[in-house]
């Protein structure tokens, strides 16, 4: 894999570093207390899944991809379309 857009890579890494700093700060506080196995009930609620309703995401991402200039970041394997 060759990277042509070095500027892209450095921009993404800068934003990622900023986010990582914020996460590290929060990790040093009470925001980081990984649950014990018997404490995970609330994490398994349907509202806590990351991707949500797949049918809804499919529709919504398709509309946004065809009306905006950016796409992706959530998953791989979807194809393209000639959408206007």
């Amino acid at each position, binding site marked *: 894999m060759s990277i042509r857009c070095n500027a892209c890579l450095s921009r993404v890494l800068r934003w990622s570093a900023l986010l990582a700093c914020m996460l590290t700060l929060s990790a040093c506080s009470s925001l980081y207390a990984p649950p014990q196995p018997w404490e995970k009930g609330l994490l398994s609620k349907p509202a806590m899944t990351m991707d949500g309703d797949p049918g809804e995401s499919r529709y919504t991402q398709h509309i946004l991809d065809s009306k905006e200039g950016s796409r992706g970041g959530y*998953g*791989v394997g979807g194809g393209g379309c000639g959408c206007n």
Partner: protein
Amino acid sequence: MVATAWVEVAVAATDRNNNKQLGSVGGAVLLAALALPGLCPTVAQAESPPERGSVTVKYLHYKDKQPGFDRITARAPSVSIEAPIGSSWSVSASTVRDSVSGASPRRYTSTAIPSGASRMSEERTAVDGSVTYYRPRSAYSFSLSNSTEHDYKSNAAGVNARFSTDDHNTTVNVGAGWSSDKIGKTGDPDLHETKHTYEMLVGVTQAMTRTDLLQFNIGFSRGAGYFTDPYKYDLRPEDREQWTALLRWNHHFESMGSTLRTSYRYYTDSWSVNSHALQAEWVQPISDQLSLTPLVRYYTQSAASFYLDPRPGTQRAPVHSNEIYSYDQRLSAFGAVTLGLRADYQIDKDWSTDIRGDWYKQRSAWRVGGKVSPDLEPFTATSFQLGVKRAF
């Protein structure tokens, strides 16, 4: 179905010696880490297939407009199915048929730009399927998809692997995808172009507290081939490299039973389009059966390096001598806001239904963070989705 899962989870929470039950509860993080759309079962047992299969029928109605003009209308029914196979496998498949008609939105006055089919009517059929194999602390999936319309055919494949730590609080996700597109043009039998794309995604999902899940993904995509829109007056580069950084945070408020879902995505590409997308949803149970989820999203993007603004004081195209250029408003600098509301209703243990309405508006002036394209016509879209699901 949801109530049954809750009873199991409650039992697991009090039975520390039952490893199988603990494994199921810990699988919640692995589940939340699923990054492949279409593979998100509603029961939290990711190191094993979903407990129940389901069939879902959905319908989308979409309409957009600009001041004084109706533009595109689209209707898209879809059917999807997912099912466990034994104790280690699951499959899913879906199909959607878009019927789109109308005229593409324009930022420039229609007489300024010569164009091909400005009014159009198009049908598109897409099919996708996937299979997943589950192990105690990992899961592996393979997916295929196809999208076909009169002047555009796309075939894609994807693979994904997820690994979680012993305590299931951390999950790493790696995915790769490939896509091969064939492009034509209505009214021009000599146009036969292709485009090939490959992409990768790496992410980590972390249970931060008993009520917080955090996910961070970095994505990369590289496409080569025909990117030009044959119906617009433009000529685009033959290469596009895209990068994304995505952060998602879900927080559950125990006292209210509600959940705040937030996400931020940074995007940048080799066409100089940079964007930020910030979204928040609030899932609020109203009763045992009904919940409401309002949603707000703000989006801002910069223009592509080869996008051309209209001549000052007009909405007419400038004269250009560039080899690469575009007047497509989707590559201009603008900001956009989405307001949405979704209702979920659990009818009984097998049937559920959902409905969602969205209002979306794009304006050049709403852009934040840089140069604004001249205030061309704003663009508004409304849509609603209706779904019915039957678990079996």
